[in-house]
């Protein structure tokens, strides 16, 4: 006589032992994975951002309107900054979401804090994206074009 013993967790999990409430699926696992993947990319993007803006040439003294305009006249830096904006905001929002879940004990407090957090995230991501794409690096002020080596004469 032999009996087959299933290895642990191989079959269906009884409802009372399920960790997620069905509809949420494996959102938390995706969020956990996202933090690690976006983290690696952000190290490269942010270190590059700091090096180019603060360490090269005159450093911080060079930063003015013309500096930003010169960078965003180039699609390479538009894409760089856009990726950095989205990844950093989602990474940071998920981090603060975790902290709210850890420390806010009342359901209503958590819900309010997360509503404020997600609203701020949407505003900042939409604003930043619009600025990168609708920005004119060669504005004409009072009929006079601003000088810039990257602007058409």
């Amino acid at each position, binding site marked *: 006589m032999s009996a087959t013993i299933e290895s642990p967790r191989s079959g269906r999990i009884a409802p009372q032992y399920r960790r997620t409430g069905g509809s949420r699926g494996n959102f938390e696992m995706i969020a956990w994975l996202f933090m*690690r993947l976006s983290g690696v990319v952000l190290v490269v993007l942010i270190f590059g951002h700091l090096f180019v803006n603060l360490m090269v040439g005159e450093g911080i*003294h060079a930063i003015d309107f013309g500096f930003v305009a010169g960078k965003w006249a180039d699609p390479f830096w538009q894409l760089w900054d856009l990726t950095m904006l989205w990844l950093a905001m989602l990474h940071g929002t998920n*981090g603060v979401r975790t902290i709210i879940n850890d420390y806010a004990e009342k359901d209503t407090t958590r819900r309010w804090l997360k509503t404020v957090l997600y609203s701020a995230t949407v505003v900042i991501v939409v604003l930043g994206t619009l600025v990168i794409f609708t*920005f004119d690096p060669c504005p004409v002020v009072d009929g006079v074009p601003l000088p810039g080596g990257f602007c058409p004469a």
Partner: protein
Amino acid sequence: MPTKPAGTLYRGREGMWSWVGHRITGVVIFFFLLVHVLDTSLVRVSPEAYTAVIGAYKNPLMALGETGLVAAIVFHAFNGLRIIAVDFWKKGARYQKQMLWAVLALWLVTMVAFSIRHLSLALGGH
């Protein structure tokens, strides 16, 4: 609220303190990021508005603030890579303490180099 039992305060070790440092630096960076997107958005208002606000940042106090911000970013970055190693490298958990000391050593080297360059540019004459 349950009351705290006596004498069980967990003072932690390298693992806990790196977790505390990661949280604090993460929150600091997040709030800076919100402000940083707002100030950069001024380029869309007018060249003068952007240059005026950025000009207000160019003083010795802000230079120290920027150095502190970069210190937080560099720690969060290196410790984040350590967390990834703990999670995905087979021997990561066993070497987590050694990796924290490596993080702190790399952080120190990076910050010495950054501070010399940034502060001499920001505080020195043009």
